């Protein structure tokens, strides 16, 4: 692909004459004519005026709503993070968090190509820069999961080999092996064409509605556990606040929260998450379950057998 344009909005949006004019805003008559006049194609929605269709204006109701507890009932206290502050039009937190741990595919041209998305005024630059190649954006390109899974499955064998060789390479080249899990943060995108979406179901004991998580947007267990924390913290109701406190990434992974993260592998066995290298995990996981620690006791012996003496995770 040629013709990469770097830089921000101004350079690229030269064509859109009407949008940059400062023509005065057309006002709206009330109730019966809720639509702004569209004949005047050079009119612009003036930033400073809030005269709107149906007499709606942003001023109404805002103050009153501040006191609202939220239709969910119980309060949900949450520490604000960078993702809570105004930024415009980013893709979901999952893709942002995962992209920070891996650069996009090697070519720098893809990064500057991504900057072309900043043909819009918003700060898409930061988003595009963080996201890199389009593979990091959730749901883009718009291909149904069904079709992606089919394609991925057909290409499965070669991809597995690439994964395994990457894992081996990184293990060998990294002498400072700390916790097993951190070693598994492999940048699997070196090859460029790996995973698409890999959505697996996640159920948590005590919560009736299961969720789905895209494993391919993660590169290591920590980010996955963080995503699960976010996911189950918000979807649970008041009575699960206890569980909310319990779930933090490290607690999920080492089981000290009273819950353990487990997965069902291709053979139908339930295993503890975190023992095998990430690549192996990805290739064999079918679904996840956040299990009460009390029920997970049975997993340990099986793990010992199948891993033949590997380090055993405490429950």
């Amino acid at each position, binding site marked *: *692909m040629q*013709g990469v*344009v770097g830089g921000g909005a101004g350079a690229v*949006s030269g*064509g*859109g*004459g*009407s*949008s940059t004019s400062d023509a005065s805003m057309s006002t709206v008559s009330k109730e019966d004519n*809720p*639509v702004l006049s*569209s004949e005047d*194609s050079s009119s612009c929605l003036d930033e400073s005026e809030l005269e*709107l269709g149906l007499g*709606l*204006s*942003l001023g109404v*109701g*805002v103050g*009153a*709503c501040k006191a609202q507890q*939220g*239709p*969910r009932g119980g309060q*949900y206290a949450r520490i*604000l993070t960078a993702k809570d*502050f*105004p930024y415009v*039009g980013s*893709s*979901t937190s999952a893709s942002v968090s995962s992209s920070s741990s891996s650069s996009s*595919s090697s070519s720098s041209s*893809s990064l500057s*190509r*991504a900057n*072309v998305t900043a*043909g*819009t*005024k918003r700060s*898409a630059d930061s988003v595009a820069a963080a996201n890199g*190649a*389009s*593979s990091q954006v*959730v749901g*883009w*390109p*718009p*291909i*149904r999961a069904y*079709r992606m899974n089919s*394609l991925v499955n*057909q290409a499965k064998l070669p991809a597995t080999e690439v994964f395994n060789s990457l894992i081996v390479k990184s293990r060998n080249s990294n002498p400072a092996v700390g916790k097993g899990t951190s070693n598994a943060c492999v940048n699997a995108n070196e090859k460029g*064409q790996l995973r*698409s979406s890999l959505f697996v179901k996640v159920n948590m004991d005590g919560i009736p509605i*299961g969720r789905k998580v895209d494993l391919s947007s993660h590169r290591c267990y920590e980010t996955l556990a963080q995503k699960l924390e976010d*996911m189950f*913290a*918000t*979807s649970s*109701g008041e009575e699960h606040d206890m569980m909310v406190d319990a779930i933090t990434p490290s607690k999920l992974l080492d089981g000290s929260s009273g819950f353990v993260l487990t997965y069902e592998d291709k053979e139908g066995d339930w295993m503890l998450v975190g023992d095998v290298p990430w690549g192996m995990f990805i290739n064999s996981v079918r679904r996840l379950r956040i299990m009460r620690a009390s029920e997970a006791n049975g997993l340990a012996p099986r793990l010992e057998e199948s891993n033949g003496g590997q380090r055993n995770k405490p429950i």
Partner: protein
Amino acid sequence: MQRMACSFPDEVLEHVFSFVQCDNDRNAISTVCKSWYKIERWSRRRVFVGNCYAISPDMVIRRFPDVRSIELKGKPHFADFNLVPDGWGGYVAPWISAMAAAYPWLEEIRLKRMVITDENLELISKSFKNFKVLVLSSCEGFSTDGLAAIAANCRNLRELDLRESEVEDLSGHWLKHFPDDYTSLVSLNIACLGCEVSFSALERLVGRCPNLRTLRLNRAVPLDKLANLLRRAPQLVELGTGAYSSELRPDVFSNLSGAFSGCKELKSLSGFWDVVPGYLPAVYPICCRLTTLNLSYATIQSPDLIKLVGQCQNLQRLWVLDYIEDAGLDAVAASCKDLRELRVFPSDPYGPEPNVPLTEQGLVSISEGCSKLQSVLYFCRQMSNAALMTIARNRPNMTRFRLCIIEPGTPDYLTLQPLDVGFGAIVEHCKDLQRLSLSGLLTDLVFEYIGTYAKKLEMLSVAFAGESDLGLHHVLSGCEKLRKLEIRDCPFGDKALLANAAKLETMRSLWMSSCSVTFGACKLLGQKMPRLNVEVIDERGTPDSRPESCPIDKLYIYRTVAGSRFDMPGFVWTIDEDSAMRLS
């Protein structure tokens, strides 16, 4: 008028109405006078509910007491691309319960993007004695156990179509639950199932159903079993193969080829997973009769594709991977003069560089060679305004045009300009355009074109486009027939949305994700528009915990006469009149 209406007995009017099937026409009939309304509602047999939350099951049942066929759609379209979190909704259970009581003679259920459980399936199988058609398109929530219940209990089943649903594969034995004396199967689509179905049961089933015309197998059915199936059902009109691979053996090949030749009615082929090119010639004898060919899972290269498609002179619909390349599309343009629909899918959508020589040129060739082309879905990596203008001028009869340039924000590769004028040409020339998906670098100008010209447009999909609220305003104020609008990652905020609030009641739904809409605007809209459900979908916790100016994550607005729904999960927030009053 009153006298005229009374001069026909009800039975005559009912008979006349029975020739009118189209929903819009029947709706019109029902508004003529009270007695026509009454007759029409008693005789309406088929109901389509485009959004299952727009109305409640009870309201439908009250108005139409004797429905035999129902179609329901649940989740928004972007759920196909995993933009709608799991657990959002779309549960069919309340509908099935209500209909089980009210419509004992229900024959057909068609669902799209809904959640249906095994219990629901069992209830269906036991409640409707004359049940004939079950179509589950992109549905989820059920397993092969539910299918077993359908197979076992629905004695009059004609159609079981699981189109791309997500089914939990517990076992392939469910197929055995069709009783031995069950012979009425007409259409079976199990292509989405992962596990092996019991093959002997399948063979026997196919063999004893003389009216079987559609059979879409799943990948697990091996190629060497296909010939036997075909010989048992030479009357098939539509076939989906399983995995199309096997060791190349002359006896298997000739057996297969002979079996295909015996299928004189075969018009539609699909499947073709894991294709071994050596087996493709087995279908050559029937190519000239094919009107539909779905090769979108076939990872075969252009020369093989060209040889195959080149023989399909009567092809009307072609779905294929971009392995076909520009050269292959040139061949299609030369051979398939009757082509109405083309879909080209990407073989490597996540790779940073193009992996095959498929560009805008292929689509231009098709637009030149195929004068009946109406519907296009095209994934590619480069596009130019010139190409779009050529396509528009060649094919003013286009009704569906969906272009996906894989990298967001890609400009015209020749001029580095936005693709505004190219898409503008499409909407200007294709006056009957009903569906449009945009991609590439686009400013507010393209929306001005759309608002000006796309007067018949019903569905618009927008991603990574536009510069300001003016873009959204152009669309909402200009597109008179707009029913569905879905937007992601565009800098559209509150102003256009609030300014066009009334428009939203004339549409089925609006989806906006990763845009700049604030919670304040959503609350306002929800309070002021009682016939809209304004759903804020945000997995970061209650939107009130963030500054008012912080954009919400996802917004789904739809018109409804059923009020707020009762099955919202924890990450969906709405404001209605009641809660607004509670606040103050």
